[in-house]
């Protein structure tokens, strides 16, 4: 067998498919999937969003009527408000909590594997099971949380039965699944060069200043990635509030995706559902773009 340049250039007989065609062939499943399960639905949903469509009968073009109806629909604004409120509180609080736990783990502690597992495990609990467990924990009369509050003399609220306490309950529950972010931040922290901390020590920085001035800037790209993913995830919140609350309790736990689902599959109003989908898509793209622009100055990319 020869491996000279001449043989390489002469090309091996029998290999007739050109390189570009080979590449396209390899990625062709993805291309077909992209067209069939991504491009086609997005295109269709744009058309449906401009139509009256109940699935059972062909769509009828109605222009922007669906969007106008949404704009004057109080339920739409309610789910919008709930979703934004949830994201605006759970994402910053969750990020800070995850960073703190990751920093505590990024020490020379023994039993790192155990602590990390304890924090990470909740993220693996099927959402249906998690919803059940937390309904039980949040139970107004017999729930573990209110019993614990009772020990320190506080009468706990009827969490999931009181519109004022539904959102705090859901946000508390969301903090239970910061484990994924903790694992990601921990890996990022372990990549920060020790020399930077040594330099900071020479400058006489304390633990907190080192964290804020060295650690956070060094892992800022990872934080940015996580925050963007969390924003996208917040617009998809569905299973937990759907199981726990539905559109009950004065719609205090009624989220954007839940209303979209109800429009499509409960009211069979594909027009409204598609309009909501497009609004959601535009919001997510805008928020992601905005996060990038804002963080352009703040985020430090290592060369």
């Amino acid at each position, binding site marked *: 067998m020869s*491996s000279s340049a001449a043989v390489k250039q002469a090309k091996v007989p029998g290999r007739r498919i050109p*390189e570009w065609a*080979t*590449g396209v*062939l390899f*990625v062709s*499943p*993805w291309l077909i*999937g*992209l067209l*069939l*399960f991504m491009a086609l639905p*997005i295109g269709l*949903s744009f058309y*449906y969003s401009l139509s009256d469509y109940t*699935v059972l009968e062909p769509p009828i073009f109605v222009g922007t009527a669906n969007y106008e109806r949404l704009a004057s629909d109080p339920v739409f604004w309610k789910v919008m408000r709930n979703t934004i409120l949830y994201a605006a509180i759970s994402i910053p609080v969750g990020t800070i909590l995850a960073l703190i*736990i990751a920093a*505590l*783990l990024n*020490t020379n*502690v023994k039993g790192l594997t155990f*602590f990390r597992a*304890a*924090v990470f495990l*909740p993220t*693996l*609990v*099927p*959402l*249906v*099971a998690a919803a*059940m*467990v937390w309904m*039980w924990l949040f139970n107004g009369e*017999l729930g*573990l949380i209110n*019993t614990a509050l009772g020990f320190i003399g506080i009468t706990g609220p009827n969490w999931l039965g009181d519109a004022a306490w539904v959102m705090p309950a859901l946000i508390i529950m969301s903090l*239970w699944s910061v*484990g994924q972010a903790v*694992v*990601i*931040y921990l*890996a*990022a922290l*372990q*990549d920060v*060069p020790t020399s930077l901390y040594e330099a900071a020590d020479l400058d006489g920085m304390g633990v907190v200043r*080192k964290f804020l001035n060295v650690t956070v800037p060094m892992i800022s790209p*990872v934080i940015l*990635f*996580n925050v963007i993913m969390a924003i996208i995830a917040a617009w*998809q919140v*569905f299973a937990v509030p759907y199981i726990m609350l539905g559109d009950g309790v004065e719609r205090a736990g009624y989220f*954007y995706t839940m209303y979209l*689902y109800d429009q499509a599959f409960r009211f069979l109003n594909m027009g409204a559902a*598609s309009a909501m*989908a*497009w609004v*959601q*898509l535009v919001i997510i793209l805008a928020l992601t773009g905005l996060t990038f622009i804002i963080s352009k100055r703040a985020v430090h990319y290592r060369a």
Partner: protein
Amino acid sequence: MATVEAKNPIAKTALYAALIGISLVFALPLLWMVSTSLKPEAQTLTTPPRWLPDPVTDLPKNAIDNYVGRTTEDGEIVARGVLNDPVIDFPLYLRNTLIVAFLNVTGMVISSAVIAYGFARVKWRGRGVMFALVLATMMIPFPVLMAPLYVIFREFGWIGTFKPLWAPAWFGGAFQIVLLRQFYLTIPKELDEAARIDGCSHVGVFLRIILPLSKPALAVVALFQFIFVWNDFLGPLIFLQHRDQFTLALGLQLYQSQAGNVPWNLLMAASTLILLPVLILFVLTQRTFVEGIATQGLKE
């Protein structure tokens, strides 16, 4: 590994106290779930709450009653448990979930492995643009697509079958493609170049060199995808219609939606059962898990 050291003994004690406290808080809901699942119904409602059944020696009996249930020889139910529930057919939902998971995971691993090769090892015009498109699709959430997808699958005659839950997986997934491509790029190019010069085709390089070397990355993809399918709620909720096709996640919800009178101990036993396989997988593959998650977040 650049870890920070806590040298001061007081700081060290405080650190361990904080970590133990945090771990307990995170573990508590799950411990309470298991604890409730091992109590008879009457004891789930006691104040103050008890962590163990009374008497403790009843624990094995409670476990059998709540999880397996007890049925007499002529089929009469003495104790209603998760596995012998006449209304909510847990074993059937388990079977459905495993069928969907098998078809979905197999498809996702095979297709993403092939597609990633096209992005990592074959040079073609437009590859960069296409790969950017793969990354962009990660930002499109499923809820945006679900209504039109329902219409499309309805045209295919797929509604009320398992197909919508696994067929799309055979066309690859963005996260999986990105993860595998990153992994392929760490494999020395000299290996496949040598093989190519020896007359090996791209298919040959893929099958004989790249695939065997990528087993760890393929395992990560399979593991994550299995967990995703196992936990998925929205997909089955939209595309399945008959109760005898339900997956576990959907079936578990029946306990809650059916009536308010399902006892908490049964609910918690069912929740424990659905968590169990995931828990076992996690314990067996903790390192793979942690590394997989970490690399997912670290691609900059």
